[in-house]
């Protein structure tokens, strides 16, 4: 038999390892989705997603978890807008107005890295302390604030990465025509917008699934909040509450998980779709 040179064996071994890793990841995704679908779909009914919990929800199958669905959206959508309103200017300031290597950009980048690494429960505890200090109760507003704080470092970090993909030539081209920094920014933003949208929606996907951040700050409620100072239910906390209860509540838990997953999926799909709409002129 002819001897196969070592480098071909190496090549083959590496390829097998890569395929194996890819399959492993795929298997995890499929099994998570199968679990929540199989366990949750039986309990998912129109009532579940269109009604708040009934009076007797803790002894019978009464009502749904509309409070948690709406609560999650009411926390996360304003938080996304606030976080984007803070993050996008920060990204442009660090990358266009300051030089990328300016000490202030460097310090800011370091700070955002640290913030990114802080666990969400710590954000929750921190916000809770402040809320106690100013005499605020667990409320929709508290949830919005802490989710905003959670999303800002994620958005700044990915925005920072994305703006590195803008070729220097593009910035130079704009400047050399006599454009101001602001006019240049308006050019560059077309190039980074799709990436920024994807980054924002990924951050939302992360924040909407986070139970720890909203646990102390948004509280829980069986009703849909009527004002910013009302406490509100959220999907991850609903899941957390139900999973430890006896049957039939774990079923509700899985249907809530299914709804949450569908929301996140819709978010990321719409992010891609929006991104593609804006990229038609990109280089």
């Amino acid at each position: 038999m002819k001897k196969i040179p070592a480098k071909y064996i190496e090549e083959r071994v590496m390829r097998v390892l890569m395929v194996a890793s890819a399959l492993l990841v795929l298997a995890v995704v499929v099994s998570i989705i199968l679990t929540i679908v199989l366990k949750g779909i039986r309990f998912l009914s129109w009532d579940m997603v269109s009604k708040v919990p009934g009076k007797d929800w803790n002894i019978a199958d009464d009502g749904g978890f509309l409070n948690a669905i709406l609560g999650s959206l009411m926390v996360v959508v304003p938080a996304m807008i606030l976080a984007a309103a803070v993050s996008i200017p920060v990204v442009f300031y660090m990358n266009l107005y300051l030089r990328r290597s300016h000490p202030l950009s460097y310090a800011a980048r370091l700070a955002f890295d640290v913030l990114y690494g802080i666990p969400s429960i710590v954000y929750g505890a921190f916000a809770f302390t402040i809320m106690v200090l100013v005499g605020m109760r667990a409320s929709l507003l508290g949830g919005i604030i802490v989710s905003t704080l959670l999303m800002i470092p994620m958005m700044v970090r990915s925005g920072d990465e994305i703006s590195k993909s803008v070729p220097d030539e593009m910035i130079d081209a704009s400047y050399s025509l006599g454009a101001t920094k602001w006019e240049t920014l308006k050019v560059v933003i077309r190039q980074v917008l799709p990436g920024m949208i994807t980054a924002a929606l990924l951050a939302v996907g992360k924040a909407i699934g986070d139970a720890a951040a909203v646990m102390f700050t948004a509280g829980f409620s069986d009703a849909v909040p009527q004002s910013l100072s009302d406490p509100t239910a959220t999907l991850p906390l609903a899941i957390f509450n139900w999973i430890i209860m006896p049957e039939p509540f774990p079923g509700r838990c899985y249907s809530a998980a299914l709804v949450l997953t569908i929301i996140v999926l819709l978010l990321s799909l719409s992010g891609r779709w929006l991104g593609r709409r804006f990229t038609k002129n990109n280089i």
Partner: protein
Amino acid sequence: MTSPGNELQVKNFNLSIEGQPILRDVNLTFPERKITCIVGPSGCGKSTLLKSLNRLIDTTDDVRTSGEISLAGKDILHAKEADLLELRRRIGLVPQRPCPLPMSIYENVAFGCRIHGMHKKRKEMNEVVEKYLTEVGLWEEVKNRLGSSAARLSIGQQQRLCLARSLAVEPEIILADEATSALDPMSSRTVEELFVKLKEKYSIIMVTHTLPQALRIADYAVFLYLGEVIEEGDASQVFGNPREELTKRYLQGGFS
């Protein structure tokens, strides 16, 4: 100060980046409506000099300069924001790698005019876009797809689009930083011929690595070595009968 016409002048210009001297005591007067080629080995400061002429060097870290650069007597080096924007309009740039802006072909040409508030009427703008796309020989190729993305043009077409974009803001001077080095031989020749045609109306200052190109099109030549101007003069003299030993050696391919 003597500054006849619209000359671009560099006087006693020194530049250092992070303490490293890059350009030393550069004195140049770029002739009007001629092609000036700046040649020299890699790392001699050619591109830095070019970038100083329109102050794009501002975006580099820790740059120190001294001396004077002026266009028609107007100080470029110490120009304040508003003056600088106007000076940059008067000095166009054709980059090494063509980089269309992320917009349609039409908007690429119109962008510069829009930011300077030129040609506000739609009909006028259409004429301007047509005029400059025609001038760079792109009109026939793109007239039916002005609204489509500039990124879909071939690289040679993109470079001509960049040229049209610069011309649209009515500059007096065009800087070209190895503007043909990323192009295939055919497009490279097209752009080169364009420059020769354009020198009737504009002063062109180009940095080039290809000596044959400099020999073909230069009217005036500057030889830069380790940040110093070794020799400058009419191209025929600098290339044909160089005074300096270093220039001779460079032209013979003694170093690159």
